[in-house]
């Protein structure tokens, strides 16, 4: 509940009662527009999706009509190997890219936290991947990974690590690696931003005291800084996990260029194709509910964390 501030502000109270609507009404009026927009544009369509998942609705077969089939499409989903593959891909990419974004994001934050004349430039470098449109990120990296003239191939050949350019996007395993690298580049910024916020909240005296006591920087990082970053890391972890489960734009752009489609298809992309390319709205709704369930599972962890933290 709201914290009582030290000022009991005695004279203010009669004032408020005299000329203003009650606080309850004020709250309702202030919250109503937001509630309307959220319910109209997000909640109502989500409920429609739940309902749609129980009906067959294929635009490609208008003769079928839109009969109620109950949970039949859910049964179909669990027997659908393409769903299984998409779910596995999603979780696989999810784990790799979440872990990767922390391994890259934490050092990024430490570097950007360093006092330096380059701090402004470092901050822009930190924000840029985060702010870059995901579709454009996908296009850029598809070009960097180009099998003939890509700069990554060039660097690897020049340094003698490989002899011949690799066909990144048309070799299944390499296409997967390329996509993971792209998503990690794009999402490390987010982790770095949250960690940077955490770092700025750590009083300098703490590390200085450790310094005086003869702790090495590595020791003070693992013993002092990392534990104090725990809340920030938890927040970053939950939000990263949710966005990882829902990833769409980057796989979508990669699939346009890579024949290794099955390995790159995430749940988000499969839902998109089921609805827009196969025009099977009923089954797309069922798949959407599955994706939402996965997101919700992650959300539940978040809510538990928030409640636990209070």
């Amino acid at each position, binding site marked *: *509940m*709201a914290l009582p*501030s*030290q000022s009991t*502000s005695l004279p*203010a109270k009669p*004032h408020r009662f005299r000329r*203003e609507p009650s*606080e309850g009404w004020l*709250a309702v009026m*202030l*919250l109503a527009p*937001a509630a309307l*927009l959220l319910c109209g544009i*997000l909640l*109502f*369509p*989500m409920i429609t*999706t739940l309902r749609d998942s129980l009906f067959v609705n294929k635009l490609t077969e208008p003769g079928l009509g839109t009969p109620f089939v109950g949970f039949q499409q859910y049964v179909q989903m669990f027997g659908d190997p393409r769903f299984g593959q998409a779910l596995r891909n999603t979780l696989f990419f999810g784990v790799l890219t979440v872990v990767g974004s922390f391994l890259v994001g934490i*050092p990024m934050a430490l570097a950007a936290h*360093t006092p*330096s004349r380059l701090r402004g430039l470092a*901050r*822009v*470098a*930190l924000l*840029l*991947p985060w*702010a*870059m449109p*995901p*579709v*454009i990120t996908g*296009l850029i*990296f598809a*070009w960097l990974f*180009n099998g003939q*003239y890509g*700069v990554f191939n060039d660097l690897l*050949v020049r340094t003698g690590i490989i002899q011949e350019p690799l066909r990144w996007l048309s070799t299944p395993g390499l296409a997967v690696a390329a996509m993971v690298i792209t998503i990690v580049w794009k999402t490390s910024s987010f982790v770095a931003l*949250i960690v940077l*916020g*955490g770092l700025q*909240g750590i009083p*300098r005296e703490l590390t200085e005291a450790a*310094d005086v006591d003869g702790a090495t*920087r590595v020791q003070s990082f693992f013993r002092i800084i990392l534990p104090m970053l725990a809340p920030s890391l938890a*927040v970053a972890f939950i939000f990263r996990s949710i966005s990882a489960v*829902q990833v769409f734009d980057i796989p979508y*752009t990669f699939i346009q260029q890579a024949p290794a489609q099955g390995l790159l298809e995430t749940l*988000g992309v499969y*839902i998109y194709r089921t*609805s827009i390319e196969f025009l099977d709205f009923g089954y*797309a709704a069922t798949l959407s*509910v599955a*994706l*939402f369930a996965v*997101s919700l599972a992650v*959300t539940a962890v978040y*809510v538990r964390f928030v409640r636990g933290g209070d």
Partner: protein
Amino acid sequence: MEDAPPRLTPLERAGRWLGLSALIIGGFFPFIWMVLTSIKTEGELQKFPVQYLPSALNFANYAQVFTEQPFARFFFNSLTVSLLSTVLAIVVAAPAAYALSRLNIRGRGVLLTVVVAFSMFPVVSLLVPLFRLMRGASLLNSYPALILPYAALSLPVAILTLVAFFSSIPRDLEAAAMVDGSTRFGALTRVVLPLSAPGVVTAALLVFVNSWNEFLLALSFNTRLSMRTVSVGVTLYQGEFAFPWPLIAAAVVIATVPIVVLIAVFQKRFVAGLTAGGVKA
């Protein structure tokens, strides 16, 4: 943050320098590589080992971006949609955030959790029902078809950022204004709003960037060429089998410029705002 630099051994100094350069090169390189690609000719691109710098400045690709597709129109559409969804989201989020941070509302914690939950809706799950909603309202191929969902999708993060900011402004300041005879509304406009300007800027940037970058809804709702946005527009240069990279690179650079400018101008305030809001939210 002008504290005295801590004493460093040469090794540590080298480590820091290395870390900073890695961050700066890593962040900028892909974008810079697109700029370089965009001023090369197709012939210069098809060389391996790669020719890093173009032999001549060649801006023909930029001209072609605008002649091959109505890219100026895409740009105008994106600008309109992003600005209007930012205005809508802030106008709706600010009162809600004010109520959540200032008024004695029962179940405030639950309401905040609900707001967080709304930020977790997978957009792709909303695609078909939202499409029907927009078709029913005859809004397909119009600005509101994107403005409404963009504002709604960014609303939770805007509310959470603003709640964090409003909560950081001492209540005593408002109380003082009200003692001096100001109404609650007067205290809001004259005391709270000016002080929360950094929070509003942060929230507005978040909404703008989200809207500028959105792809899926723009791809599906506004299918008429004259209603396309830049994020969809950049994908329209690729042929069935051909990728005219210099052309795509030029389009990518043009599409990214507003984002780069915004980030460069607001980086200091934005990082401060995000870190203040992000961790508490």
